[in-house]
């Protein structure tokens, strides 16, 4: 079966080959390997980009293949980040607190330790009590489960409500956007217990790995991200090929017809919506330790829309398109807004890219939607056609 799977999907082989080569190349050039042609901060950017590619292929499956323009998948990504961030922050703070209390004459009681950790973490929002939401933050296993389960459960409940009442098309998009707005507002509140708009920080420090340098840690995370992207790619190719893929593409094109063929359309949509939400959670959990900080602004509706932009520019309905879109647009964004791009002097006005990049991106996006609905991935079709002709 595996043979035929790859034979039917030759792009998988190419993609995995390319990803492996890229990973090996980056590893050799990294600081940890000693060559240091790629700085640790750029290595982190590359690792983060891989995570963004992972959430982008999840978005592509839910939108490009199943036709659900979800404006909430970046919120699931953020929830994954928060879930792992809570453990990172708790455990790291605990290490610090225990070390600092060691100097005390009396060894600390468990209560004293908890209170000290609490005031360290929640001091910024004027509290020292642990909110209920942090009940499992001491356990890596439980928080890792939460990375997958919380987005999954949220997607399951929301999807069940939305699909059951046959909300489709733009209505569904707006509803998912409303969900995302509600989530981000929820995270913004101090009452929620997630440090309000301060978010979680110091996530780049991994508890128990204090001796490992950031250069090495970053490389590990880069590998983990590459592995996750590869696995995610395989998972989604498997899901979107074969008869299951045929059904979800059919749902995208004519939902009512699929229903009259006897398929329970809602189950399929719910399955896709939930699985992609879980993958988004995993991507977020890998992304934020590399970013070091997460705050509710990351969850705002705009982020999920950008996710759709990446997929559209890359070319939806093909997984490698989503990868290309996410990688190209997010790397270009950081290049342009990070001051990497040279300003253009028009004589009367200097175009400063930190100010004008979003204008360019917005207009590019309009142009892509209007003139190249297949996105960058569409170029491969042109190449393939040319190859056949010659």
């Amino acid at each position: 079966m595996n043979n035929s799977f790859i034979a039917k999907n030759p792009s998988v082989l190419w993609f995995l080959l390319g990803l492996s080569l890229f990973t090996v190349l980056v590893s050799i050039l990294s600081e940890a390997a000693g060559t240091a042609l790629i700085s640790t901060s750029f290595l982190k950017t590359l690792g983060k980009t891989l995570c963004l590619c992972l959430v982008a292929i999840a978005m592509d499956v839910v939108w490009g293949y199943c036709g659900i323009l979800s404006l909430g998948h970046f919120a699931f990504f953020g929830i994954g980040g928060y879930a792992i961030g809570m453990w990172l922050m708790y455990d790291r703070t605990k290490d610090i607190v225990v070390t600092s209390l060691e100097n005390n004459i009396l060894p600390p009681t468990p209560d004293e330790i908890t209170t000290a950790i609490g005031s360290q973490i929640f001091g910024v929002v004027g509290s020292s009590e642990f909110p209920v939401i942090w009940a499992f933050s001491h356990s890596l296993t439980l928080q890792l489960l939460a990375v997958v389960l919380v987005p999954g459960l949220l997607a399951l409940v929301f999807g069940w409500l939305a699909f059951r009442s046959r909300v489709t098309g733009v209505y569904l998009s707006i509803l998912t956007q409303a969900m995302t707005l509600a989530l981000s507002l929820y995270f913004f509140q101090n009452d929620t217990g997630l440090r309000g708009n301060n978010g979680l920080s110091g996530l780049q420090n991994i508890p128990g790995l204090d001796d490992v340098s950031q250069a090495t840690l970053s490389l590990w995370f880069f590998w983990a991200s590459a592995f996750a992207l590869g696995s995610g790619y395989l998972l989604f190719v498997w899901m979107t090929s074969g008869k299951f893929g045929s059904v979800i593409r059919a749902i995208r094109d004519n939902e009512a017809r699929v229903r009259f063929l006897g398929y329970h359309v809602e189950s399929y949509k719910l399955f896709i919506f939930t699985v992609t939400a879980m993958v988004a959670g995993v991507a977020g959990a890998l992304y934020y330790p590399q970013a070091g900080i997460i705050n509710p602004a990351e969850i705002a509706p705009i982020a999920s829309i950008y996710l759709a932009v990446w997929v559209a520019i890359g070319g939806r309905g093909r997984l490698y398109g989503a990868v290309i879109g996410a990688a190209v647009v997010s790397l270009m964004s950081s290049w342009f807004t990070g001051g990497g791009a040279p300003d253009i002097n028009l004589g009367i006005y200097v175009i400063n890219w930190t100010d004008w990049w979003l204008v360019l991106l917005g207009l590019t996006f309009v142009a892509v939607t209007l003139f190249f609905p297949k996105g960058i991935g569409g170029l491969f079709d042109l190449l393939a056609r040319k190859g056949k002709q010659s």
Partner: protein
Amino acid sequence: MRSALFALILVICSGPMAFAQTLQPILQTHAKEIAKPSRSSVSDALDAIAVSGLPQVTGFLEQWANKNVWQRNDGVFFIGMASGDDISLTDVDTGTTTIASKSDYKQLKPNGGVRRLIGTALVQFQLIDPDLSRRESAVASIARRPEAAQLAPLLASIEPEVDGALKARKIQLANFLSARFADDPKDRIAAINSLSSDTSVEARAVLNQILSTKAGVAKSLPDANVAATFDPMGTPDMSYLALVNADFAPAKQTQADIKAALETNIVEGRIGGFALNQMTDPTIRETAYAALAADGLVPRLITKGARDAALEDHVFFALYDEPNADITNAAQTVLKTVESRVATAQIADLTLDALSLASIFFLAAIGLAITFGVMGVINMAHGEFIMMGAYTGYVVQLFVTNYTVSLMIALPLAFAVTFAAGVVMERLVIRRLYHRPLETLLATFGISIALQQLAKNVFGTQARPLTSPDWLAGAWVFNDVIQISFIRIAIFVLALLFLGLIIYILKRTRLGLEVRAVTQNPGMASSMGINPDRINMMTFGLGSGIAGIAGVAIGLYAKVTSEMGSDYIVQSFMTVVVGGVGNVWGTLAGAAMIGFGQKGIEWLNPSNTLAAQTYMILFVILFIQFRPKGIVALKGRAAGD
């Protein structure tokens, strides 16, 4: 009630007639207290001056308080104004002016406390001053700092008062003062009862002051006007602290106290027989402490049992500062009535708030309802059109400084600008994407980010003011509880106007007819000579233009920023979807539901507007479950896909 007041007035007015006609002798009698006044000694002098009832007293007291009274070496007082080495002197009685050398005179500089006493004495004269503004300021000063002594002069000044409004205010204030300070309890109760229909903050403050209490603790309940008794076990630690503060019990050791005591009693690495590393367990800490206490090294530990026994032994209560139970009972009853009135008024106020929020949502959403509802086109840049309208208003104000005129210019101009922007967008982008609604959503989103960043580049990131004209600046105050700003009323009126206008355009004009024709059957419409392209362009322009006007209106009460559009876009979409797509009445219903819902939730949880928004969105998501087509749903085949 009235007759009692008049009786008091008569008594007071007939008092001071028999005294001397000049002020200087009185001043000389109290020369020492006046020249070197202190808060305790000056009262006699002030009483004497006040009792004289002379017309020149007001002027003298005012000048004295303003440090303009000078004393000659021989002790005579003058009102003086120094200029250089000379001083211009005014006789306190005759008012004649002379110039003299400053060296023979000394300026009186009463301190703040004395000046306040002078002010109080002044009030009774100012209350009957011929100048209305002085009388008003006297009344205001009594309201600011009511004192028992002011009651009599205030009552006396009511009868001669000629200004109707001020007289009413004086009567109200006299009521407040009588309720608190009248000598006869009957008068006080009468005054308290008369407050039952007054929902003002002042009246409630008066009642609360009468009902002010002090918490206390004792072995047994004292024979006094007890407001309430408490069960100390509700908050045992707090109650015990009260006991400690009242010296009825020794202080209970905190965890920190125990820790400190343990740390100072480490003997050869052990405490009370326990090893140091056992101290991570709080129960062992207590046991070790008990061992130390047994050796007399530390005070005995107040255990939970000891604490509870001490609490059982005492009563915890609150005493009214007012000893007379009749008065506190009356005040209690009246306060309850007033509070229920206030609650009713608050609901009315909340309704007004909700109405104005609903108007804003309606204004923001109505343009969207046209483009989304009638044409089926998603315009994510709708919020940015609102922003463009607001910035148009701001730019107009830069050139036209008369705010009324600039508003008159800004409204049509904002419409024109956003109408043009809408038409351009329709022609360049949306027209190519009909029948691909999801792609329209994305393309217009691209425009939205471009416009937002463009606005940021042009106008900067900080908020720009859009100032409303003066006649819109105030608020319509119904009473202390119910009030609504004129801007919100204006927005409400604007929303109503638009509702009427849109319904008129859609139902009564040729354009509206053609719009409906194109909506229902574009093929048939075009075969009847209607140009669907033109109609779509006009509709889109109209929807966008209304967004521009909404932008000016919203900008008047909120700040104008490049991000203001995105604040409204999700809410606007929800308004349209909840209301029912393709129906102006639906948008109205949706705006009303979301506006009232949000205010309602805010009322339940007033501290947290973010939470209100969160729960409102959740509610909308659930609402869609039960009415997927919205409140005003089109039924039947037309609604199907």
